């Protein structure tokens, strides 16, 4: 893709969309914003669903998923299923119970349920690590889009993008901008689907619902170029598919920033129904993403561009924009598409880095280092942590370790191997104690990084615990470790067991 010169109109549109978020946020500033991410007036079930979807949408959904589909066809549908199916787990096993437990963040839940500052510390470190890994993927997306917008190298793009996202968060913080997640979702869905409809129209496929229209394009790929995009297990075995899908599912149900969403809506019933709407809004994007991938492959094939795996790997993460450019979409429409990707990544980075910084300031500094710290001191620590985390993410994103969706999947694996079992047993088995939780979380960390650490020496580790898909074997193993350790150590405090039986599972007895 031509990246030798700046794309002025897309650049103006991206800046305009970001500015509009700030202006709308200022307009609705009147409402109280107590703690980052958990504030907001009541917005109904559909609005709550849009907020869930907006909170969820990141560069991984907007850019990364289509990239992986472009590269791996059917295999990448594991991402679609993992990232939607996880919400079923979350809704039926966790949502209502966490809500009744009444703790806002993963470290708060773990600290209180297991009555242990150590367990709180471990879960805080895990939550911050998840935020960092997740943000590396976002920075990669931002870097690639900025490189294209300004016509510079990826390295330049990621540095400029990091500066832009940090400035954006700082400006929003200084002005006290409230996040309007409904507007954000609306922008994301329109910027993703409108260019896709035009693309389908230009290519001569059913454009009103390009989610169905791309089927004919897939058939054309087979007929004209013998390219079977739907070949099952061509890019990975059944085990690899299932492992990836399951990992993303349990990761979804264990991601701290997803779990926290259930506190935005005032009652449990609305919170549950918001999940249904949220899932529908998320599915709208995921039903559409394969179309970009298929159209991308078709345009390339028709243009006589040979599919080179190495080159494809390098640009897969920007295939959404590349397809729009190659498909001859007007520059302003490509700009709109880029603006959607940037706003999805910006809002995710803002949310995750602020949550990570708050967690460092509250769960680690205030709870463990300096319990007498004033609010001003805590705020200063949070601000410093935010900048430090952003710098760390930037350093790690300069040489990204994989594709956007793959990097994100590692964060899901970590959540699935640690937070998910700790919440699951914490809610559903009263006998789980702090020793079990701590042993489980530590084992989960080792399992998540087992392949890079030991995979070369013990090949079976790399087979059973692939770096992006370690939770199929990992989550059950961690659960077993938690049960085993809990049974051989003293039971949790009786108040905790009583609270669990009476308030979490006995509210209607």
């Amino acid at each position, binding site marked *: 893709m031509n990246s030798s010169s700046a794309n002025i109109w897309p650049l103006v549109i991206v800046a305009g969309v970001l500015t509009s978020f700030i202006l709308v946020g200022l307009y609705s500033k009147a409402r109280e914003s107590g703690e980052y991410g958990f504030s907001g007036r009541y917005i109904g079930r559909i609005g709550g669903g849009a907020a869930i979807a907006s909170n969820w949408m990141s560069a991984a959904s907007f850019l990364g998923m289509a990239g992986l589909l472009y590269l791996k066809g*059917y295999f990448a549908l594991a991402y679609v299923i993992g990232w939607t199916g996880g919400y079923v787990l979350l809704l039926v096993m966790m949502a209502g119970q966490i809500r009744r437990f009444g703790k806002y963040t993963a470290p708060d839940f773990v600290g209180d349920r297991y009555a242990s500052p150590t367990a709180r510390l471990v879960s805080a470190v895990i939550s911050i690590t998840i935020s960092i890994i997740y943000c590396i993927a976002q920075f990669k997306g931002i870097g690639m889009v900025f490189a294209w917008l300004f016509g510079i190298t990826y390295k330049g793009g990621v540095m400029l993008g990091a500066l832009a996202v940090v400035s954006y968060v700082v400006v929003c913080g200084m002005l006290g901008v409230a996040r309007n997640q409904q507007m954000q979702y609306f922008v994301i869905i329109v910027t993703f689907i409108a260019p896709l409809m035009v693309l389908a129209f230009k290519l001569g496929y059913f454009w009103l619902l390009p989610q169905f229209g791309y089927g004919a394009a897939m058939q054309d790929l087979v007929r004209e170029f013998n390219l079977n995009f739907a070949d099952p297990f061509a890019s990975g075995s059944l085990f690899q598919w299932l492992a990836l899908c399951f990992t993303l599912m349990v990761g979804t149900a264990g991601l701290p920033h997803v779990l926290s969403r259930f506190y935005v809506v005032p009652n449990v019933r609305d919170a549950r129904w918001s999940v249904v709407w949220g899932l529908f809004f998320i599915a709208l994007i995921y039903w559409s993403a394969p179309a970009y991938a298929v159209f991308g492959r078709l345009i390339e094939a028709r243009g006589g561009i040979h599919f080179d795996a190495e080159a494809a790997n390098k640009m897969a993460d920007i295939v959404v924009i590349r397809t729009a450019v190659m498909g001859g979409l007007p520059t302003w429409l490509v700009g709109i598409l880029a603006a959607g990707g940037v706003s999805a990544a910006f809002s995710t980075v803002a949310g995750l880095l602020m949550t990570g910084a708050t967690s460092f300031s509250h769960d680690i500094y205030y709870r463990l280092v300096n319990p007498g710290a004033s609010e001003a001191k805590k705020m200063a620590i949070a601000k410093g942590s935010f900048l430090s985390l952003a710098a760390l993410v930037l350093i790690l994103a300069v040489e990204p370790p994989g594709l956007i969706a793959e990097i994100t999947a590692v964060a899901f694996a970590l959540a699935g191997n640690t937070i998910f079992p700790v919440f699951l047993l914490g809610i559903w088995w009263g006998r789980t104690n702090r020793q079990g939780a701590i042993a489980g979380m530590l084992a989960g960390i080792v399992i998540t990084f087992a392949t890079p650490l030991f995979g070369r020496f013990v090949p079976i580790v790399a087979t059973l615990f692939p770096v992006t898909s370690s939770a199929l074997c990992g989550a059950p193993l961690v659960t077993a470790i938690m049960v085993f350790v809990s049974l051989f150590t003293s039971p949790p405090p009786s108040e905790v067991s009583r609270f669990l039986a009476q308030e979490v599972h006995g509210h209607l007895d």
Partner: protein
Amino acid sequence: MQERHDSYDVNLFRPKKGYMGGEVGIIFIILFGWGVVTFGFQFAVWLLGPHGSSILTEVTFFNLPFHFWFTGQFLPLWFILLCIVFNLYIDRLTERHSRRRDRTYE
């Protein structure tokens, strides 16, 4: 009632009678539908065509190979339906038990 609370230790596989029993029942039903349809279908694709081609991949639906449509388009819809069924059931269960306790909803 209080004594029963004190002696009960929460366990997913031994739920209390009443609301929790009903809740755990629907959870297992939904999880069954979630797991069997999601993972069972992939097994079926693999069993019927270990090298890729089978009736599931050759039949087309909405212009897509059936297995691609089922996984990429139907399964997310299936998850939404499962969530709706769960919510409707829990709403009814909650209302029934709230009335029994003679208190307003939640």
